[in-house]
């Protein structure tokens, strides 16, 4: 765990770069978090996914996996990979300030 400054605010990230306290996140932090993941500009489609991730997390206690995102977010899995090439669920969760989606075992 470490404290990092994002958009001039101190936040706590875990070893894998996910927010420890999702309530520390604000929309102003998203562009900087995205740049850290190699995404220079956030499009409307990016924002649609980011907002969907957060609402799912607060409703269900875990962020959705890629497959569930593809079924429920209104963005297909193919497009999700175009938006977040290195792994949509993981990258979008980091930018959306929520913990790593609880994958399956």
């Amino acid at each position, binding site marked *: 765990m470490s404290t990092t400054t994002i958009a001039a605010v101190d936040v706590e990230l875990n070893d894998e770069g996910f927010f420890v306290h999702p309530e520390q996140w604000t929309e102003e932090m998203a562009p900087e978090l995205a740049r850290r993941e190699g995404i220079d500009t956030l499009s409307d489609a990016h924002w649609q996914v980011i907002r969907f991730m957060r609402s799912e997390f607060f409703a269900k206690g875990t962020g959705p*996996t*890629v497959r569930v995102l593809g079924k429920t977010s209104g963005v297909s*899995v193919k497009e999700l990979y175009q938006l977040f090439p290195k792994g949509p669920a993981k990258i979008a969760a980091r930018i959306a300030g929520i913990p790593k989606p609880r994958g399956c*075992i």
Partner: protein
Amino acid sequence: MTNRVVILGGGTGGTLTANRLRRLYEPSDVTITVVDQDDRHVYQPGLLFVPFGLTHPEDIVRPRRRQLHRGIDFVESAIDHVDIEADNVHLVDGTTLPYDVLVVATGAVLVPEETEGLTGPGWMEKVFTFYTSEGATALEAAFAAFDGGRIVINVVDLPIKCPVAPLELCFLADWYFTERGMRDRVELTYVTPLDGAFTKPVASEHLRGMLAEKGVELVTEFNTGEVDGAGGRLVSYDGREVPFDLAVVVPLHGGAPYVARSPGLGDDLNFVPTDEHTLQAKAAPNIFVIGDAANVPASKAGSVTHFEGETVVENVRRFLEGEPLRAGFDGHANCFIETGFHKALLIDFNYDTEPLTGHYPNGFGLPLLKESGLNHLGKLMFQWFYWHSLLPGRDIPGIGSTMPTTGKHLSGKD
């Protein structure tokens, strides 16, 4: 007054729950009805051995109703939907089954059609799955006729039933083609969406080493977007390709289709949201879930289902008698991993403790995370235990439903 328990699914979880409840209650106190769409109970761990000619589909299937004890009703029909407000199950044949307690035990289904191209050209000709009797049988013929080339074993995405099975298929394929004297003409590649050979760090490291030892190439973080059977290649969503002459694919899994038709019961993948310790459904207090149908973060495996049985039956009893539920299930899983050449590994873990080295169930037991002939015998013997001890709902002597820690190297080191 007589309570009515309806159990959906006559597989591992439904059968052992029915038999345990029957022992607990007289038929005059509780009626038990098991529903399934067919009367074929497949010993699913046996499917792994079919492609290698080590067993045959007809040797691993028995009638479902014969596994149920006297005094349990069996209804053979597909399920249309569950009305959780009215406490009714509606069957496809038009029958309505009212219940006081419902146990969901309908497992997971394969949804190969959700992956682009998977069921297209080449399906069951050069692209196979061994997760069905038909697929495993077709793969047996394809392996027998194989005269060299590139074989790819691919897991599309988790969750899947028995997450170690595709690794076992790699190990057995290495053994099989070695025995046939043609291993040098066969390239084996394991392609997984995970970032390692397995989900849990210590086991993942051991299994990665074993793949390397057996000359199986490992491709990680590969999210299969398309299976191109005609062109002989897997294509990932991020544009990578893995060529093959023969592919063994574990398709996406979901819950049973009726779950989607039952408002409020399931999640987006048709699994049933379930409390991971009490095994009560989130949808209603009189619904309990056992086995692969549940969305709990445990492996989808028969051993998990077996260990869940005690908690489900105890909590059905507590619910009927108005007592608080017991948070008894700890996520315990226990899997033999067949590694070929008459050896196997054993892993044992739960929600909190990953698979470790040591011995099971105590310091004098079977070796954990280590290849051994004893574990192979354990795996072979298990089929007998399955039909004669696990399904009747008996405990296996010395094997508790919670995970043991004695005999394990809890620091995770040898």
